[in-house]
């Protein structure tokens, strides 16, 4: 019975393309992604008083994206390094992304991730992946959350597209090739 129930859920989840998002992980990422964004030289030197983060989601992840937005906003109700944190939501394939500092990509689809990464890197926009494993599709940074928390940076993308992060971040981060 249990086996049947598990199988049913698995089939349903695949069918509905719904993914697992851990709330604790989201909390940590909501807290750290804006900081990592601010440690990128171009963003840090941007005279705009806002740090704009766009959350890109697919239809099934709308609630997650909304939740993420709320978490980030609640983390930084005031300014972070003299910048007000603005979070916008953008649905993959429908929204037109304009003038953003960083992208938080909630997709689990390699193809989608690659497209977003390709576009973001071309426009020199920092991209954050929910899991460090997704960095292999060309996203810039993520956070590994296990026994300890560890920022992950995509070394090849950083080098290739000329992202410059603060040395302290580089010092405490791990890198994927």
């Amino acid at each position, binding site marked *: 019975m249990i086996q049947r129930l598990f199988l049913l859920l698995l089939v349903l989840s695949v069918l509905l393309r719904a993914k697992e998002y851990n709330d604790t992980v989201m909390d940590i990422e909501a807290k750290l992604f804006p900081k990592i964004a601010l440690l990128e030289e171009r963003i840090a030197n941007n005279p705009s008083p806002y740090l704009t983060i766009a959350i890109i989601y697919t239809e099934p992840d709308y609630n997650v994206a909304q939740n993420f937005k709320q978490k980030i906003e609640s983390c930084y109700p005031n300014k972070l*390094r003299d910048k007000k944190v603005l979070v916008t939501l953008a649905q993959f394939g429908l929204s037109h992304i304009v003038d953003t500092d960083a992208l938080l990509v909630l997709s689990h689809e390699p193809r989608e991730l690659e497209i977003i990464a390709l576009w973001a890197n071309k426009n020199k926009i920092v991209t954050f992946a929910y899991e460090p494993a997704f960095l292999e599709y060309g996203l810039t940074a993520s956070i590994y959350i296990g026994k300890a928390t560890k920022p992950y940076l995509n070394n090849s993308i950083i080098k290739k597209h000329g992202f410059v992060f603060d040395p*302290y971040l580089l010092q405490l981060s791990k890198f994927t090739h």
Partner: protein
Amino acid sequence: MIFRTFIDKFTFFFWLIFLVINVPIYIFGNIYFQEILKKSEHEKITLMLTTLEPAIAFNISFEQEDQLGEILGSILKYEDIQQIDLHFLHDNKFLSKVKKTKRTTKLFTYEHSIIDPFEKTEIAKITLYYSNTNLTKITQQVFTTIFFIFIFALIVFSIIFFSIRTDLNALKTIAKAMSEYSFTKKMQPIVFQSKSEEINTIANVTNQMIANISDYLLQLKSFNNELKEQVKNEILKQQKQERLMIHQSRQAAMGEMLESIAHQWRQPLNIIGLATANIETEYKLGVLNEKKFDEKMEIVSLNLQYMSNTIDDFRNFLNPERKFGSFNPQKSIGEVLNILDAQLQHNNILSKLIEESSITLYGVENEFKQVIFILLSNAKDAIMLQLQKQIISQGTINIFIKQEKDEGVIEVCDNGGGIDENILHSIFDPYFTTKSNANGTGIGLYIAKNIIESRMQGSLRAKNTEEGSCFTIRISLVNPEKENEVI
């Protein structure tokens, strides 16, 4: 501060310099060095934490506890840091690292706030516990070094001091020998061997100098003796010369005297001659009675008495006795005028003695008379020349006796035409005369000046007046204690 010898002074200043150099080093080391080290230690820890603060802050901000542990561990590697506490303010958690081999020495604490790099708020407080073991070790090393430098300096200074002192002692020996040197004492040569060539040279030169001085001293003694002998001979010669000159002067005076006697005696001789001729005539005529004879004899007797008095005057004048004593110049000058009176009258010279003050002089009266005689004779000769040239018709000699302060002043002034200004400074020189050879020896004024200045401690000056010349004798009226001295 008085230093008796150069060595004392040298020793004092030498060790003073030693102390001046070394004591400040010691004081500096003792007082300031520890402070400097402490400050340096504190600055080092501050610098270390200031350097690590961003890393710590980032790690806190990114919740990198493992990294924080590594950073705190690296801080703990610093020798003097014993413990490090990190207090997270947001959740009041503590992360602490303690050195295993904890020291028992006193621990100092150092607190530092960690500021969030994003939100600029204090997120943690780090507290360091450190000992000064390393500082003490460094201080001890420094003091050991300073001590050895001090000892080394002491040794160097001592070597220099004793090496110089040996030479200075040699100099001291030379100085002592020189200070004890006396012309009257025979001195042994300075004998020592110094390592210093200069000192040996000084000693040798000193010995040579002393030997030379002894030689020169002997030569000097011999020369002095010769000189003494020469001076003695010269003095004797001079005395002989002076005696001769005085004798010549007296001879000249005697010549003048004889002339005076001749003048003085001419009239009484005539009277006596007339009286005896009258007696003879009256006797032959038989008219000579006793009364007439007595009258004539009376005349003869009176004139003979006059002549005898004249002789007495001359004899007194020429009396060689030189007895010091007080005398009245007015009386002395009067006697000289008496002697010359006949001559002066014969030559139509009027003499006047004016006593403005009554004074008493001290000296040998006869010598004073000789001076007055010389001055009057010279005045008479000058006037006679003027009379012969008919420049004047009447000769005058005025003699003034007066007192000016403590001096008796006698002025002999004439109208004899004065002395040529070109020779005025030479008239008192011996053998200087303007008279022809027959009339002058040139020693009168020299003798006169000599008597007044040497025998009566006075002065004799000559000056020209409108009519002639004036000789001024000034003699102190303070009586020196030479009463009754006979030379």
